[in-house]
């Protein structure tokens, strides 16, 4: 296995094109444990962290642009970004310890393909887009379309994500991400729930509800969104959100949680995240 550290997107592109079986990485926080547990080594490890574009966070023209390899710590420490998207920031900030936060990235968290990825539900709730470099240029797809199943993505072998684009949140919009883990830190989400709401006074005018760790990929919950829009988040609405979230679950039993537990707690977290998102929409983060 060889290590390569290209400094431009084009250089990375040609490395991938010329060396079949190569693999890009940013923080390697998933890759190295996977290699240690027996996953085959790639022919060439392509380190994306020396490409400036992939390590930058910028704002302009009504959107945020986040380099795919940027450490999530840079995102959570970015006050302007975290102020506009507290839910994305808190999801990104839950990926492991401070040690991990200085390595983990939105691109890696997404492309690892785990249904439990903490940064993904809130990105989907914000309709974030991934700008993907391939051998013949770039293409832009919704984040929701990147992961197709556990460990599976829609990216071709020679493609990688360059950056994410997130349109500025409309006025009176708030988002929130909650996850259930048995400890307070250092665990993989047993259930994750992101909610983004736009409010007019105390009435919800737009809603996104996305769950993690309860299905092969992160899932949107249209029934919960429908229950929220037009509501004032009264108890009946929250009960409907809970029920819709639980109904949207298609989880597995594993060492981290049972089907029964994940299904029930998804409803709890969706409801709680909605309350937090509404508060942020009305009062700011």
């Amino acid at each position, binding site marked *: 296995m060889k290590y390569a550290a290209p400094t431009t997107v084009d250089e990375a592109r040609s490395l991938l094109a010329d060396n079949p079986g190569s693999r890009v990485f940013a923080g390697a926080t998933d890759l190295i*444990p996977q290699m*240690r*547990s027996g996953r085959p080594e790639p022919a060439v490890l392509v380190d994306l962290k020396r490409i400036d574009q992939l390590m930058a966070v910028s704002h302009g023209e009504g959107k945020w642009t986040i380099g795919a390899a940027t450490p999530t710590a840079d995102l959570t420490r970015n006050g302007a970004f975290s102020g506009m998207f507290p839910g994305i920031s808190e999801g990104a900030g839950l990926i492991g310890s401070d040690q991990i936060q200085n390595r983990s990235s939105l691109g890696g968290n997404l492309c690892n393909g785990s249904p439990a990825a903490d940064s993904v539900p809130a990105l989907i709730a914000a309709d974030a887009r991934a700008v993907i470099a391939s051998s013949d240029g770039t293409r832009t797809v919704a984040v929701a379309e990147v992961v197709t199943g556990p460990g599976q993505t829609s990216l071709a072998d020679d493609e990688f994500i360059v950056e994410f684009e997130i349109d500025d949140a409309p006025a009176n919009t708030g988002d929130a991400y909650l996850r*259930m883990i*048995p*400890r*307070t*830190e*250092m*665990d*993989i989400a*047993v259930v994750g729930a992101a909610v983004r709401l736009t409010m007019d006074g105390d009435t919800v005018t737009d809603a996104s509800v996305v769950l993690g760790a309860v299905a092969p990929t992160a899932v949107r919950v249209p029934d919960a969104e429908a229950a929220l829009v037009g509501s004032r988040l009264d108890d009946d609405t929250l009960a409907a959100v809970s029920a819709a979230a639980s109904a949207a679950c298609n989880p597995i039993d*594993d*060492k*981290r*949680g*049972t089907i*029964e*537990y994940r299904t*029930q*707690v998804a409803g*709890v977290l969706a409801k709680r995240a909605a309350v937090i998102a509404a508060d942020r929409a009305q009062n700011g983060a």
Partner: protein
Amino acid sequence: MTATEHPPAYKYVGTRPIRHDGYDKVIGKARFAADLNLPGQLHGAIHRSPHAHAKILSIDTSAAEAMPGVKVVVTGDDFPALDPKNPNFDLAANIIARGVAYYHGHAIAAVAANTKPEAQAAAAAIKVEYELLPAVLSIDESMADGAPLVNETNHTKFVPPGEPSNLSTITNLDRGDVDDALAAADVVIEREFDCAHVHQGYIEPHACVVDTGPDGKTSVWCSSQGHFRVRSMTADVLGWDKSRVKVTPAEIGGGFGGKTTVYLEPLAARLSEKAGKPVKMVMSREEVLRATGPAPEAKMKIKIGATNDGELTAIDGWMAYGVGAFGDMAGLIGAMSVASYKFPNLRMETYTALTNTPKSAAYRAPSAPHAAFAIESVVDEVALELGMDPIELRLKNAAVEGDLTAMGMPHPRVGLVECLEALKASDHYNSEVPEGAARGVAVGFWFNIGEESSATVNLNEDGTATVLTGSPDIGGSRASMALMAAERLGIDVYSITPVVADTEAVGFTDVTEGSRATFATGKAVVQACDMIIDELKKRAASIMSVDVDQVAWVDGAAVSAGHGGGEGGEPLTLAAITAQAKRTGGPLTATASLNAAGAGPSFAVHCADISVDEETGVVSVLRYTAVQDAGTAIHPSYVEGQFQGGSVQGIGWALNEEYIYNADGVMDNASFLDYRIPVASDLPLIETIIVEVPNPAHPYGVRGVGETGIVPPMATIANAINAATGVRMTSLPMSPPKLLSALNKRSK
């Protein structure tokens, strides 16, 4: 905070100096086993069984041997067949399989190669043919009629030899008339409990470097709680004389009982012998979890009867411990740990059962936490039923000197009442339970042990001293040895260098286990100091030209009324005497060796305030206090550290730690990601109250404090959960899915 009965006026004992080995540990210089390298060393790796129970039909090492860098491969055939009566028979079979793999992860073969990646690749290339055997994976399966045998070499201990069995011990204790007492009781509570396997979770994986020379002499550097035991186990497994093996203890990165046995050293010794080069072996975390000893799993049924005024009149208990694939005495020790209350009528039936899982190892007060979880939970139910304060109920029934343990041994002077009183008087217990929270308390007991220890005190020419012991320091014991020596000799604690010496530099010393180091080895240190003081007085008498019986040792100096004038005489300091050692008879050195009698049991009482998120089943520990009888705290900071560390291990055991096996007996969560030991953000500060009821069998009253702290937390938390929710949790861990499921059932 310390609650001392009669504080004696000590100068050094009870103070908090910076530990002597501390500097090296904060600058990265302390040498742990994996930090050591020898010139020309090879690296070892192990091929492990992919099956929970299988006959080994053949092992083909040819491909591995042909791989780059590979020097030597060993299998079970490279080790002698031990007599089944050899105390290390099971150990030898656990270290490397001979014909049968008894659990997933059991070592089948080992490789030494130039680099670790080469050794790992070669280990993976070893081909083994297996015939699958039925795997027994639970206590119930193990104890069922007609159950398949876990291990055909296992026979029940302490009974006349019979057929092979899945039971290693059967213990029946009986006193009074339990049936009559239960029939007459005003309140009878009965509950069933179970506990999953948990691991000691030391952060340092097992590691060693072993060099076997052409003369057969073997040097071992390793991470161990007892290097003399490493010597005897390594020699036994290889069929060698013990004098061939020298073991030097490296700094040890946590043990908690788990490093009282060996896994790697005999393999590395044989690899080194065959290769003619030193061999280094270091386990991965996954190997630690899959192939080293967890604490047993257990199932328990406890019935307690009480009168309306709170007398606990009878206990009827059934406890079975699942210890993995080799014999053990966990059930017997579990019975020994039942000792907190008077219980005039007692029946305790215990079993040690085998399953096709890794061989259990000691873990801090082994077997006691399980029993205490069950008994202290039922005692809590009795208090609730009677409407009594849980401390008052326990005070009314607390064992005192002369009361019998379940085994029928009378307690020596013990401090349970004092611990309960200290908690009752504490700020925590007298504070209001926070809004939305609830409080639980529970008691823990551990008997502690004595065993054999040696110590040598060498006085240096300048009046400083070196104290050599054979007790690996797993939590500050070197500082305690120095403090006791300083107190005895009357010289400054920093002028003493405490050393953990190798097996050829100090007399035989048992393992640092059973909370025995500060007690037993401390006793040997004090005895060696007393011997050297006698010699110092002789030397002083000759310098002063007085009779030795006119010389007293006071504050680090010899004084005699007849010397130098004045009422007490002109003192002759230790340094003044050592300076003249050559002239007065040569070096000043003394060695004491003993088998320490009179280990003092240590009781603890814990108190927790917790809250429960009833929608997710998550428990938050808001406040925690550990009260424990130390006898005398030699270095209070490290005594508190033992209370706090034990408490937090227990909190982890209570809430999240467990081995999760799949249907094939493969551990599903063999990583620190999914074997969830507590992290800093899970916890509050752990308040401590050191109770000091001195142990009369130790010169400074030491009881030993290492283990008891892990005994009360599980019931403490369970009792608090019950207070918060009305749900009695009887299965460990009380993890969010289990608690939420119980809460769901409550509301239905």
